[in-house]
């Protein structure tokens, strides 16, 4: 699949000398999480109350961002079809590392109420690594914010390492993506 050309497989091995810098960086990264919202399902309606005066996401340093390049979190809310999954993978691979994925609602976990549909992707974790699941159909803003706090704890404890897992098991993820989506051959007439 051509979309994977942006990410190199190697050069993620950090030496021990970088460890201290990464701990300092982790402080900044967990206190300033910018999200890219990928709203395909109904769970997206829970985001406005969690961003505005009622729950105020900005006090945790979080906020919505316009493009994948600027974002840290990819928030997948709701079910995915093969068509949207392809765009989701393009978006995920455009984000700059370290990047985190939060799956909102029960659809990315097991398909939710659409589990028996032939056009719904059931397990998101097989295609891109998910760091935090917020279960429920649909989850409250409280549980959504709780999920973000869990993600911050995960960054602190170095358990939210999905982006590294994506590098290490890249072949497995890519095989799964190809299995579900098929190969896409783009004829780039400009460069050929």
């Amino acid at each position, binding site marked *: 699949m051509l979309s994977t050309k*942006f990410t190199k497989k190697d050069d993620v091995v950090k030496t021990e000398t970088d460890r201290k*810098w990464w701990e*300092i*960086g982790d402080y*900044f*990264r967990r*206190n*300033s999480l910018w999200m890219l919202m990928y709203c395909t399902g109904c769970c997206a309606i829970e985001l406005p109350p969690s961003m*505005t*005066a009622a729950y*105020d996401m*900005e*006090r*945790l*340093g979080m906020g919505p*961002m*316009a*493009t*994948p*390049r*600027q*974002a*840290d979190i990819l928030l997948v809310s709701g079910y995915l079809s093969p068509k949207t999954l392809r765009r989701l993978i393009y978006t995920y691979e455009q*984000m*700059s*590392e*370290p990047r985190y994925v939060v799956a909102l609602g029960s659809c990315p976990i097991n398909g939710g109420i659409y589990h028996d549909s032939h056009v719904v992707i059931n397990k998101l974790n097989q295609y891109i690594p998910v760091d935090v699941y917020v279960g429920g159909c649909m989850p409250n803003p409280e549980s959504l914010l709780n999920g973000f706090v869990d993600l911050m704890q995960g960054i602190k404890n170095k358990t939210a390492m999905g982006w590294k897992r994506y590098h290490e098991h890249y072949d497995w993820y890519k095989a799964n993506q190809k299995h579900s989506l098929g190969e896409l051959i783009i004829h780039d007439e400009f460069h050929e």
Partner: protein
Amino acid sequence: MIGILIGIGIAFFGFVLQTSIGGINRKIVGRLQKRHGPRWYQEFIDIFKLLSKRSVCHGWIFDFGVIMALGGIIATAMFMPVTSSIVAFENYDNFFIYVYLLAVGMLGMAMSASGSGNPWASIGVMRALTTMLAYEVPFLIVALTILNLTDYSSLTDIMLYQQAAGNSWFLIALPLGGIVGVLALMGMLGKKPFETYIAPAEIASGPMVEYGGKQLGMLFIMHEITVFIEVSLFVHLFLGGASSIVEFLIKYFIVYTVVNLISNVNGRFKIDQVVVFFYKWPLFMAVTQAIIAIYFGWVI
């Protein structure tokens, strides 16, 4: 040598000052919307986080333009007087230096954004230059009126002129020109009615669409120093500058907060509305003010 060190100190001071005041303003806006708001040092966390991330490269022009933008803006900030006594290069704080040198930073960013090849970035750059064309004309007419009245073009002399005449600020002495100054400042800062070239929901943050990680962090630093230059320019030209650093901090904070509060109760103009707006009332007020002040000599 001492001048260069003071200049770099002023640029660093501007960065720290504007980043802190920007964070405090985010808190104020949060309270305005009945939210708790982020911490006051949130902007520092954002910038250091961006500098700690990995980023992609879209080619040589893309990287070089960011460095050129940051360098150009730091070079501009080095000439900016903070108070009437703290100036890095004596007699070089001419008004036209800022007009000329600010363009280096802006064009560096334009070059870099176009180098990314993203169509949103090109649209954003085009809109930014159009907005610049719109607010520069009324602002320059008012600024030239001030230069004509004071017979100086150095910012230090202009602020000493206002302080010597018993703090008769040009914001009050030239009321129409003062209004034009505030409107042009909002255009320069890209605040809400004139936020057309950022427009996150419409053209995905415009020129910044392809930036992420380190490049975006450098652009944030550049943006903070640009805001420092523009707000200080307004303070020195219209509010009588400052004789002590505390006075400067108070005036700076009030100007930026007022502009930010006006911004937060407004919607966004379309790009043609921006141009029509600036060429209608502000231009008319600026020309009227110039005629009244220069040919009739009616200055309050």
